[in-house]
Structures are given as C-alpha cells and as structure tokens.
C-alpha cells in the first residue's frame, strides 16, 4: 500500500498555540522551566528537520509498516450494525483495527516514531517517559529495545504496586522503572518526575505518550500518529469510494483521536466524535471527562488546555476504569478543536464501557482494550440516534484488551 504523505492543515503558530478566532482563547504553548527550554528547542528544531528529511521519513515508514504492522485492516462489523438496528436502518459500521498493531494499540505508532526520531535526528542515547500502567511505556520500551537506546520509565508508586501486564512487559523490554513517591503517587507526579529527570539529562529525550505536553510535543505526536488516519482514509476510499460520514475515537490525552481524525479535519462532511470517560458519572465528579464536564482552561504539564482542577488551580485527579484515559487534561489541539465545535464530544461511564467490553467479546469475538469500549458504546448510541441507512461509520478500535482481562473477568463473575 502506498501511504499518502503527511500534509499540515491545522498548524499551530510559531509558539505552539492554536487560537480560537472567535473566543481568542489560546491552546498549547510551552510553559516550562527555563531548564527545559533548550531541550524543547532541540526537539522543535529536530522535528522540523525530520519532517523535511525524506530518507528519515521513508525509513520510519518502512519500520512502521514492517515492525509495527501499521497497515491494519478495516473490518466491517455486521455484528455491531445488527446491535445498532441493522444496516438498513443505521448504515454500515467499520472498525479500524489498530488493536492488531505490534504491542496491541495505536500507541506504538507515535512511540516508535518518537524514539526513531530521538535516535536518528537528535542522536539521543536515552529515552525518558512515564506511565500509568497503560500502553505507552510498553510501546516506548519496545522501540528502545529495538533501536538500542536505554529507557527510563517513571511510574507512580500506587500504579507500580498494581498487577499490570503492560508494566511487566515494559520491564521485559529492558526499561529502567523509576517509582515515583511524590504527591498522589500516580500518573501526574510520574509525568512531572519524568520532566524533571529530563531537566537533569539534556542528552536524553523525553517521549510523551499522547498529544500533550509543551510545544512541540502535541504537534509532533499527532503528526507522527496521523499516519493511522491517512491509511484509514485511503482504506475507506477503497472500501466505499469516499470518506466515512462519522469518525469516532476515544479521548484520553487525545492521541488516538487525532491519529484517526486529523486527515478529516478539513472535510466538513465528516462528523468527528471524541469520547471521554465519564467514570462513575460526570455529576459524581469521579471521571476523566475534561471536555464534556466543561473543565476550565489551565496550564498543565507545559501546555494551556482544559484541565480538571479545583477553584485554587490544584489539579483534580481523574477517575476511570481505563488506565489509558486516567488523565486530568486533554491535548491542546483537541481542546481547540472541541472549542470550535469541529470535534463533538460525548462521554461513556465505566459501567457502560465494562458492559460493552463483555458484549464485544461475546458478540464480535474481539477482545477490545477497555479504552476502546468507551468509544464503541457512545458510537452505537450516536449511530442509533442518527438512524441514517446511507451513512458509513468509522470507529477507531484503538487497542486490544489483554491487560484488562483479569479485572474484566472478575467484573463478569461479580455481575453474573
């Protein structure tokens, strides 16, 4: 397959801001201690160089194709069409199967690209990243193993104590796991710890697991990840002769959402939906639904964006069953797209996602990542509501659920 090349059609300004022209609100930027500025400038310059370096881009693509297995199929799911009311009522439903990637999620695409960039453009010797026991660190550690870079993974002490397949795999890939005992002992302080570590070692490169962090990370990660959407768009064209009517993706930091939807930003006819975790319900306050809960603008981990926080600006911990969505912020470009209305937002509760997980296993023979269940639930609901037999719906099935099996089997047994 010839993969369509990347085209920039939603650039931030020079300082890394996306500005909503109506409200004047800015998203993104580079809010970070002066100690990290040189590191970021290096990444910024490197990234610009990389995007013009044809050999780099070709080599990267070759590895993404043959190692990450990025040309995954798009599966038409008649089972889900049935559940939504039948093709004759709601149209066709397609699943982009990035669960079939190496390391079983969309994450390895940006993770591998970032590490490949660190090695070949920045000539970095070491990678620093963080994890909340989700897919990112595993993917980064895998890339580092293959590309022979050392890797340091920061994890909150509470997350480190939990049994976690992803964490174990990260260790097998040879990562140096640094347990962080600060603050809430969870993902946010682990991210801060990773940034601090980078501040101490400017020859390393920090890899962000989503479209978050200070400029140029949000831009870089979505640019790397968007190859998923470029492929998907072409595949849809081959399948149905045109772009889909809707694109649905879950939104934690926003990487899998921008990955699949970025190439459709300019196509007004394509409705794009981002789905957040409503946790125990938006009203309960125990959720990770930054946009849906109308969280205010804050400055989190180097970027201006919507943030779950209290009236004094202390960041509120998010709460959700899905470790991959357990984040109190959302990437700035996504917040911007939400503010303009280009991306519409919905939220799914944990309970709904868990039921969707069981349904997917039993009705489609697919073991989805719990993260993906939030989008599937919301997509089915939306598709039912739209009730348009002429539509083609594309859902990003962004991961496989091996690491959710123990908890989900317990849930199943507890609820039988």
């Amino acid at each position: 397959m010839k993969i369509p090349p990347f085209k920039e059609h939603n650039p931030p300004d020079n300082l890394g801001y996306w500005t909503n022209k109506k409200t004047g609100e800015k998203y993104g930027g580079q809010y970070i201690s002066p100690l990290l500025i040189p590191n970021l400038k290096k990444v910024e310059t490197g990234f610009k160089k990389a995007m013009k370096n044809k050999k780099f881009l070709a080599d990267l693509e070759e590895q993404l194709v043959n190692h990450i297995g990025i040309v995954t199929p798009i599966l038409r799911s008649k089972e889900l069409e049935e559940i939504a009311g039948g093709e004759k009522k709601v149209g066709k439903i397609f699943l982009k199967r990035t669960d079939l990637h190496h390391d079983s999620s969309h994450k390895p695409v940006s993770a591998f690209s970032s590490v490949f960039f660190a090695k070949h453009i920045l000539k970095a010797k070491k990678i620093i990243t963080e994890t909340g026991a989700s897919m990112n660190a595993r993917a980064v550690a895998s890339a580092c193993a293959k590309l022979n870079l050392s890797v340091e993974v920061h994890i909150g002490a509470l997350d480190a104590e939990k049994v976690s397949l992803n964490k174990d795999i990260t260790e097998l890939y040879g990562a140096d796991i640094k347990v962080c005992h600060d603050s809430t002992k969870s993902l946010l302080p682990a991210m801060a710890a990773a940034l601090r570590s980078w501040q101490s070692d400017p020859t390393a490169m920090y890899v962000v697991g989503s479209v978050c962090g200070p400029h140029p990370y949000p831009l870089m990660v979505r640019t790397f990840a968007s190859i998923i959407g470029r492929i998907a768009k072409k595949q849809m064209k081959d399948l149905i002769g045109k772009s889909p009517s809707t694109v649905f993706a879950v939104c934690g930091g926003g990487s899998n959402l921008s990955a699949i939807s970025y190439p459709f930003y300019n196509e007004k006819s394509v409705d794009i939906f981002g789905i957040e975790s409503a946790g125990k319900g938006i009203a309960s306050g125990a959720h990770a639904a930054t946009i849906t809960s109308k969280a205010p603008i804050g400055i989190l981990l180097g970027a201006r964006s919507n943030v779950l926080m209290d009236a004094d600006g202390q960041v509120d911990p998010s709460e959700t069953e899905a470790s991959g969505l357990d984040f109190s912020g959302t990437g700035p470009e996504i917040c911007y797209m939400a503010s303009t209305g280009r991306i519409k937002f919905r939220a799914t509760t944990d309970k709904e996602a868990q039921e969707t997980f069981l349904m997917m296993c039993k009705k489609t023979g697919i073991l989805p990542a719990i993260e993906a269940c939030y989008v599937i639930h919301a997509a089915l609901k939306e598709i039912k509501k739209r009730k348009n037999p002429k539509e083609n719906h594309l859902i990003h099935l962004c991961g496989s659920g091996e690491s959710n099996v123990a908890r989900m089997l317990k849930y199943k047994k507890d609820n039988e």
Partner: protein
Amino acid sequence: MNKTFQRIFAKAKSENKSCFVGFVTGMDPDYESSKQILIELSKYCSVLEIGVSFNTSTSDSSIIMSANDRAIKSGAKTEKIFQLIKDVKREITSDTAFVTMGYLNQIHVYGIERYIEDCKKSGVDGCIVVDSNNEAPEDDQIFKELTKNNMAFIKLIAPTNDSNYIKQSLKKCSSWVYIVSYAGVTGSKDVNLNNVKKLSKMIRKQSKIPIGVGFGIKSLDDVKKASKLADLVVCGSSIVEKIKEGSQNGLDSKNLAQFVGQYVKQLSEGVKH
C-alpha cells in the same frame, strides 16, 4: 528596581555582604508554624522566597513536592498564602523583601491582575513564576502588571540557556535575576560555581542587574563561595528538609521556628565578604 530591593542591596553593599535568600513553601507544615518560621527567618534573611504550592509542578524536586503536599493538606491556597505574608509582615520589623515562587496555573486561575494586586496588598516585592515562558502572552501580562506596581519580576536562567534566551529573559527581568547553578532539580546536586561564573559573564555583557544564585546551596561553605560570585544566595531544599525534620520530631510552631531559624542563622553568616 523595586524599592525594598533597592534598600536591601544598598544595605548589603554597605555591610560588604551578599543578600541571603531563604526559601520555604508557604504553610508547610501548617499555617501557624509557617508563620512562626517566616518571622524567625526574617531575622537572618534579606529576602524570603515563599512557595505557592502546585500539586502538579514540573520542576520541583521531591523535597519541595513533599513540602507542597504538606502545605496543600494543611489547606494552602493562593489566598491563604497572601494572608500568611500579611500576618508575617505585621509582626516583623526587619526590612525583608518578600518574593512568591510558583507556577503559572495557580496565577492564571487566580487571575493575573488580581494575583499581582493581592501581592501588592500583602507586601510582596516580587514574583518568580517557574514555568512562565518569556514568549507566552501571560508572561507579557505578568511583566506589565508587576512593572505597573513597581514589583520585581525575577526570571530564572539555567546553564543550558543560550545567549538569545538570556537576552529575552533579561528584557523582562527586574530587581535581580536568578541563576540556576546546574541543569537538574533543586536539591539534587551540589552547587556548580563554574556554571555560575560562565552565566554571570554572559549576563554582565548585557546588564548590570544583581545576580542571585540557587540550586544546591546547603552548607555554610556553599554560601560563602556563592556569595563571592553573586549578589543574592538562595537556599531552599535544605531549609525545607529542616522543617520536615523538626515537624516530624513533633516540635510545636515556636520550637520549630527556633530549630529552623538556628539552621538558617548559621548558613546566613556565609554571605559576609
């Protein structure tokens, strides 16, 4: 230059010494203790730097983050820090400068204008905003408000920053500039005086602004050496560690203040030239 700093620098010059800057997180371990500590420290410090806690700070060491946690648990909020500073100022007689140190999110949420107004009202003389990027619109606004109110905007400069960055920073920096002695986190390494020398040279090419040095200063000897190179010597982590030690040992606020004060007293003697 801010008036308080003007007086302080003049006095230091006359006494042939540098200025000692003591850092504590506001309300660590609680309001009352923090108040007593600040009152006590005002005797030995020309400048008191007061941390406004942020639970997701990106550049603090574990030591400072723990202090932030303690403060937040005891109810630290931006408003309360202002209250604390007011309370302290009411009880001290020394001509000490007050500086807040924090992250942009807190200020943004509080409102930049309101924050600086309240600083002014509380008797704060200057602000450090760790993650306020020189190029960010918020930075311009903070600069504007501080300047309007005759307060100091103290910028950090690291050994890894290039001359262009330094130039940018100095444009908005007032009263003094804060040199970070090594690329790392506070308290993690020993002070690096070579870095300080190099940075001072670069700064001096562009400006006569007083220079402060921080990061890694934790002994009398460190203070002595640093004060040879700089107008202000900042000591943070090791003071915060003392607060933790004393409060873990169950000292009440007065005794805790004494305990920390004794430590700071002997450190501060190093600033004499």
